[in-house]
């Protein structure tokens, strides 16, 4: 009796299992289809999600971050175009995640990697990065990203240099940042800002090799600034442009034309900016 009873149950299991397998596969396939059709994911605004997190804000931020990674991963796997609406969702998600945990670094990296290069939303990316820089105030990477975006994407050299200067003053920043910032400031038409920045960096730096590099760039920028100043003076007085930089010496605005420590030749751009053929890069030895 008992054996018959057991075999009945085994038979039932054998019948039910394939049904379960059928529905299991169907359900997952359906979910996958639905996710592809989904225009954007849902998002709980941060003023609510902070409350709903019930003390697990960090964990909720991690989960939301994984969701956004999966969302864009699905788009990429299925070779679906990322629409403007999707990018809005991305921006809002990063905003919510960084409201939940403003110190979380990964969302800022994702912003820099996607919103600039792929979406072309530089200002929005910079706004999110600026939010991060406000909290991670000792992290040089965030102002560096903003500086890079300004320089590379927005062609705003002055703003770019300003942020890279901020980044270079933060602990752990790479040694090349001060000189990069100074170069950007120079190209941004603010040689004097770059000179001041380098002087401050020199005062704060104890490393001899670093100091020598900074000193050299400072010298180059001071020389460029000196020529620019004389050039401006010449234009104001004579109400005309120079034909060659040596005109400044012959007219008595400069005792002699200062040298570019990097070995380049000075020139004047159409907009009146002084530049050097060395681009303030040390010649290869």
């Amino acid at each position: 009796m008992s054996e018959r009873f057991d075999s009945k149950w085994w038979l039932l299991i054998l019948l039910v299992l394939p049904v379960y397998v059928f529905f299991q596969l169907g359900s997952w396939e359906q979910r996958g289809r639905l996710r592809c059709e989904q225009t954007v994911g849902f998002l709980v605004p941060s003023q609510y999600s902070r409350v709903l997190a019930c003390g697990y804000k960090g964990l909720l931020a991690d989960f939301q971050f994984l969701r956004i990674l999966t969302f864009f991963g699905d788009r990429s796997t299925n070779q679906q175009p990322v629409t403007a609406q999707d990018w809005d969702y991305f921006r809002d998600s990063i905003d919510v995640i960084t409201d939940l945990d403003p110190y979380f670094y990964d969302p800022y990296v994702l912003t820099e990697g996607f919103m600039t290069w792929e979406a072309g939303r530089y200002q929005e990316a910079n706004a999110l990065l600026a939010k991060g820089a406000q909290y991670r105030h000792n992290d040089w990477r965030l102002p560096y990203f903003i500086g890079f975006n300004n320089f590379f994407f927005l062609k705003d050299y002055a703003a770019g240099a300003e942020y890279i200067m901020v980044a270079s003053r933060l602990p752990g920043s790479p040694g090349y940042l001060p000189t990069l910032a100074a170069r950007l400031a120079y190209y941004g038409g603010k040689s004097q800002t770059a000179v001041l920045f380098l002087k401050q960096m020199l005062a704060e730096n104890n490393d001899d090799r670093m100091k020598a590099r900074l000193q050299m760039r400072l010298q180059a920028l001071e020389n460029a600034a000196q020529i620019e100043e004389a050039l401006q003076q010449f234009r104001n007085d004579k109400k005309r442009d120079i034909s060659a930089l040596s005109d400044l010496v012959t007219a008595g605005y400069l005792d002699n034309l200062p040298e570019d420590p990097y070995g380049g030749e000075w020139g004047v751009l159409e907009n009146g900016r002084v530049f050097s053929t060395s681009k303030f890069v040390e010649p290869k030895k």
Partner: protein
Amino acid sequence: MMQRVWALALVTCKEGIRDRSLYGIFLFALFVLGLNIAVAGFFMRDLGKVTVDMNLAALSFAGLLLVFFICINLMAKDIDKKTIHLVLSKPFSRAEYIWGKYFGLLLVVLFAQVIVLLFSCGTVAYVHGMYPNYFAGFHWPVFFIAAFFIYLQQALLCAIVVFFSSITSTSFITLIFSIASYIVGVSLEEVVFYLRTQAASQDVVASLQLQRTLETVSWLVPNFAAFDFKIEAAHGLALEWSRLAMTCGYGISYIIVLLVLASIIFKRREFN
């Protein structure tokens, strides 16, 4: 008096440790810690932060399960099963019973938390070993401070359980009241500060009335968010001594007030 309180605390603790549900809670915590090892690699740079988030969440959630399902049961069992008559026939005052039970609950929670914390340290050390370059902001002392405040939060929750057990007749009502207190306490700060901001005051109709009500509630229900140092631990942020001292003082004073009230109520209570 202390001896009697201590004896009762030990009995309560042993009873709690014998509870089979404790194994379930340990298994849950181990599952979350294992999950941490599995998912840490999904993230890009802040692996240390994610690891600490998951470990402290496991510690905190395991503690909540313990308080809501084991501690409430330990507290209410005597009254539910009428064994309270037997206990009170011993040379115990009712206040000693309340304090003894409370310290017993604290010991159970401490026992469970220490075990989960040990596993948690192992997980953090393991993930740290796997990805040593992504733990720049991690500091063990801040991690342990956060774990201590999770324990203090649960000590406060135990006091709430004891308080509600002293006024209600069934464990289910104690459970509902305790969970409600926790949810209100953990989200209260966000709502109060949200309403305090100028922008919110302009947007929300009758916010002044609501604000006053919530300010009143904030005096009655403990602000559990004050004990939350998980974000600080996740990023290894510096903690001010004044903040730690203030939070400790706030938690301990609230516990004492609640237990004294529970003792007064329990003394006047009649058992059928």
